[in-house]
């Protein structure tokens, strides 16, 4: 049943830009799928291991710059070729993440959050200051493909591919021993370690995988928006959005981040985002955030799961209470 539902979902996703063409709608699709991928990737670290990273936006930007630099330095022509180089950006991000993750993961819980924030700001400063490399605050330009009216469509499929990759990776981790180890780390790291889980390696692996995915998505994003600037591509709001989505949907679950992204991203795009209006947008965003945290602390998917369980057991109890005519009365 599960598999056919998944196939249906995938079918809908693939058919979406064909069925509902128009740059505006496909644009929404691109960003929604982007966040599906981002939230799912973030969840591999935040949800499975319990290490909340608020700095993933830094790696998102790193991936964007990585792809941008590869493309501009190698003079890759605009077009599909750029997409083929995305995995390279992922590898670059992964390599970068190894030493960074190793240092960051030496800390626990509270400190780790702060360190990830610091890493993000460090990357932003580096991107701004290393003008020779990144163009600094003047930005870096990707080549512009000449796809005309259907410009958004290839990006949509690229994001779909990355989102599907994120989900597949997340799913396979979850079913594996490695994933069990991660969940054990989340529950009690020292006990996990004493039981033989290789915590240092596992945490780092999860971190690197998560960040590589985020970096690749960042690369495609950079290509999509053409111009990337340090403060817009390494944006704390992107980082917190993916956390909120994973959180809303249910951290640590597989479908949670997807649900969260599907709910929040279209909503986020429909808020008026003019420069004057953007300030109040923050207040509404914050309010949504707070309501979600206070009312649904476990997220949509687990809460719905609980309700489903309660409903099922209620029905079962009802069925058993129903009086039967042939019931022998024991005297």
């Amino acid at each position: 049943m599960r598999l056919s539902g998944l196939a249906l979902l995938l079918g809908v996703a693939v058919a979406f830009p064909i069925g509902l063409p128009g740059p505006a709608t496909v644009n929404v699709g691109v960003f929604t799928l982007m966040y599906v991928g981002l939230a799912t990737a973030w969840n591999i670290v935040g949800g499975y291991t319990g290490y909340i990273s608020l700095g993933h936006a830094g790696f998102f930007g790193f991936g964007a710059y990585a792809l941008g630099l590869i493309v501009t330095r190698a003079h890759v022509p605009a077009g599909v070729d750029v997409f083929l180089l995305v995995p390279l950006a992922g590898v670059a991000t992964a390599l970068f993440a190894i030493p960074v993750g190793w240092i960051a993961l030496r800390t626990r819980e509270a400190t780790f959050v702060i360190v990830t924030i610091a890493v993000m700001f460090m990357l932003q400063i580096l991107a701004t200051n290393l003008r020779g490399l990144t163009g600094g605050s003047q930005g870096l330009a990707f080549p512009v493909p000449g796809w005309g009216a259907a410009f958004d469509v290839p990006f949509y499929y690229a994001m779909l591919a990355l989102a599907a990759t994120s989900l597949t990776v997340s799913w396979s981790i979850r079913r594996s021993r490695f994933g069990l180890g991660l969940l054990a780390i989340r529950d009690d790291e020292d006990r996990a370690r004493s039981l033989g889980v290789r915590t240092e390696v596992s945490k780092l692996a999860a971190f690197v995988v998560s960040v590589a995915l985020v970096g690749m998505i960042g690369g495609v994003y950079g290509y999509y928006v053409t111009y990337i600037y340090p403060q817009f591509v390494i944006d704390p709001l992107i980082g917190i959005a993916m956390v909120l989505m994973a959180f809303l949907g249910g951290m640590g679950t597989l479908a949670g981040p997807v649900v969260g992204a599907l709910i929040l991203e279209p909503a986020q795009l429909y808020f008026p985002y003019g420069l004057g209006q953007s300030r109040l947008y923050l207040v509404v965003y914050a309010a949504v955030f707070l309501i979600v945290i206070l009312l649904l602390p476990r997220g949509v998917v687990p809460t719905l799961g609980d309700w489903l369980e309660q409903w099922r057991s209620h029905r079962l109890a009802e069925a058993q209470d129903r009086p039967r005519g042939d019931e022998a009365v024991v005297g």
Partner: protein
Amino acid sequence: MGPSLIIGAAALGVLTGGVYALMSSGLALIFGVMRIINVGHGAMVVLGAYLSFVLLRDWGVDPFLGLVVTMPIMFGLGVVLELVFVRPLRADREALSVLVTYALALGIEGVLGYLFSADYRQLRVSYDTASFAIGDFRITWVYVYGFLLAVAMLLALFGLLYRTRFGAAVRATMLNRTGAQLVGIDVERVSAIAFGIGMATAAAGGTLFGITTAFNPDSHYDLISRLLTIIVLGGLGSLRGAIVASLGMLVVEDVASVLISPTWADFTFFVILVVALVVRPQGLYGVRVRGAA
């Protein structure tokens, strides 16, 4: 480049470090008492700066004097925020509190942006041009006033913590929350008041910050990244650590600004953090929890 330039930069570092010490002590206090990271502390500092700005612009109240008004307001706001948004968090408090306080920061940023736009503001006072010189390096006197006020407030804070019964309750809660409850301390009340104190120090810090630095609603990101770095370096929950780390970091940054370049100055902040994390993850005065920080 004369040595007076370096000494002057170091002196400036000490003076601004004092203000950062005040801001970060509030953050350290909140973490120590409630084990939550108030990622919104930077926004609260900025809010304090804007409150002083309003008092100055609309009523001509001197920022230093205005503290008499802004600090109680922020204290009250802090207590209310704690009661409404933090206290309901029961399970998984640490992770959720980060999200909650971040949301509060965004909300504050949004409101401030709506009310005051993104224009940079600064608290201009008539005496902010008077300066003195250390060799080739000039320092305006407001930095000294701000430093003195910060020192006075920190002394008051330490007085509160080490000379009053309430302070003893706070320290007990910081050491062992459950233990404190067992001896009859109302930890929830202590938490609310601690959060209020944290906000009040943020207000004071904000005013002092706003006199010397131009700010706008967006400034809280830069501030919070520094404040968080400071308390990690000092050791989470340690007030002493926050003060030492503040002074140290700011001196290094200001000297680096002179020796290397201003653009790379704030990068030194993070470099120090990285070095510290490799060498001593729990910070200067932090306690090693189990295996790590």
